[in-house]
């Protein structure tokens, strides 16, 4: 492991590796990425693969519109040849109640005004798009045709190959125990008992970010909330888009992976900071019951694997990006509140810009700085969801 680098990135998930990728693209190759566990062991490898720009705040929409452009660029670049892909197969929100259809109509006006082409679907259009859906319970639906999916491990290993070929060093099972600050400036980190010196340090350590930053007296308001997901055995393609059951509490979703397995998830009430071994016996019934009403044939499908991952959650459910007022040359990219995988490429671009230009290049990102919690400048949602 190198002892002295230009940029030290802590966390080898999608954020850390995308930041390394964007730094290379801007000519910075003296970069070390460390992770306390195996590659993508945290929230990246536990996510349910969906990608969209149809959010309800200007910040999320603007960042993810750029994010989707970057996913497409990634997929058509050398990363695509290494297996990374973006399948723009859309998101479909299904409403069971008439009043939700009215709400969708309001949402599409908001999305359209921000340049995201969501639209309402007629029942016939819905049947055509998702032919295996039981529309008897459905009052209406909304489509985001720009949304899609990709596969975290294909993405991670494509990025890993690219960055290591371009002289970035990636060391796994190497824990950054504390950051080192001298006269108000970060100068490196202590990694497995070794002091690594760096001009810039980026904390992209997901659920471990809060504890690591505490070592230099910074306490970010992040809670690690367990979220549950499962995948079934693989089957032939049944439908393309990610389908969301809007009117069921906890908003269950189902999406079929490229290999054919159905990913399913639903938010259930959870206690922050419980360990990732906290499996819930009630989760699988809670997610499959509503989804089986929409897709009755799912009852014959077999559940293969069930796991827990953290939503690294902030008070306004938006990421924390950028530099600190207290410590110079220290940057953070965490607190994605469940959207870190889809935001990976845009995270990489704007953190690399921030380090090299002193600004992220996307003005909306400047509102996501850590100091917003101190001054009470939380991000506002333009439509209240739920």
């Amino acid at each position: 492991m190198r002892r002295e680098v230009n940029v030290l990135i802590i966390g080898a998930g999608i954020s850390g590796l995308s930041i390394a990728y964007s730094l290379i693209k801007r000519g910075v190759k003296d970069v070390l990425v460390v992770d306390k566990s195996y590659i993508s062991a945290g929230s990246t490898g536990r996510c349910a693969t969906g990608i969209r720009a149809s959010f309800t705040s200007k910040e999320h929409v603007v960042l993810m519109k750029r994010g989707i452009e970057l996913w497409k660029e990634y997929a058509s670049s050398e990363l695509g040849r290494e297996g990374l892909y973006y399948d723009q197969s859309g998101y479909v929100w299904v409403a069971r109640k008439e009043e939700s259809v009215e709400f969708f109509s309001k949402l599409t006006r908001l999305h359209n005004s921000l340049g995201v082409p969501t639209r309402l679907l007629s029942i016939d259009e819905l049947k055509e798009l998702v032919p295996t859906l039981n529309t008897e319970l459905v009052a209406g639906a909304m489509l985001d045709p720009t949304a899609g999916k990709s596969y975290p491990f294909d993405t991670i290993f494509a990025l890993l190959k690219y960055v290591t070929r371009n002289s970035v060093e990636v060391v796994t099972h190497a824990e950054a125990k504390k950051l080192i600050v001298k006269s108000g400036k970060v100068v490196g980190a202590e990694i497995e008992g070794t002091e690594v010196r760096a001009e810039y340090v980026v904390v992209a350590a997901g659920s471990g970010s809060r504890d690591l930053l505490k070592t230099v007296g910074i306490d970010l308001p992040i809670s690690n909330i367990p979220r549950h997901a499962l995948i079934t055995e693989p089957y032939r393609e049944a439908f393309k888009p990610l389908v969301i059951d809007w009117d069921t509490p906890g908003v269950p979703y189902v999406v079929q992976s490229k290999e054919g397995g159905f990913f399913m998830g639903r938010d259930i009430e959870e206690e922050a900071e419980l360990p990732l071994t906290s499996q819930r016996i009630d989760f699988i019934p809670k997610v499959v019951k509503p989804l089986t009403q929409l897709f009755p044939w799912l009852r014959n499908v077999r559940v293969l694997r069930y796991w827990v991952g953290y939503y690294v959650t902030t008070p306004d459910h938006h990421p924390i990006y950028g530099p600190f007022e207290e410590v110079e040359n220290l940057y953070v990219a965490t607190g994605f509140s469940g959207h870190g995988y889809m935001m990976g490429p845009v995270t990489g671009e704007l953190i690399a810009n921030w380090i090299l230009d002193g600004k992220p290049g996307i003005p909306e990102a400047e509102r996501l700085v850590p100091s917003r919690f101190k001054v009470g400048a939380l991000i506002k949602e333009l439509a209240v969801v739920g």
Partner: protein
Amino acid sequence: MGGEVRELREHPAFVCRCRDVTVDDVIKAIDEGCRDLECLKRRLGIGMGPCQGRTCIPIVLGILARRLGKRHDEIELPTIRAPIIPIPIEYFLKSIDVKEVSKS
């Protein structure tokens, strides 16, 4: 592995029959830097197919141990995920909600 059409050697040795992973795939992944089973699992899909690793994990563990010059018991096993054996969704539909039990 991603459903691509593979050009196979005349007699490829498969370690994973769920995802068509061969001995050569495993060796290549190790040489490219995957030095533990958690990494190989995510890189190749071993242990994540319908057999949940019952066939492939002991074989891959052996290849990895030989390649790294370690004993078998020095190689850490990957996390096992419930429900271990694939279970039809139908069975979960019959389950009673925790709240329903506490009400009665």
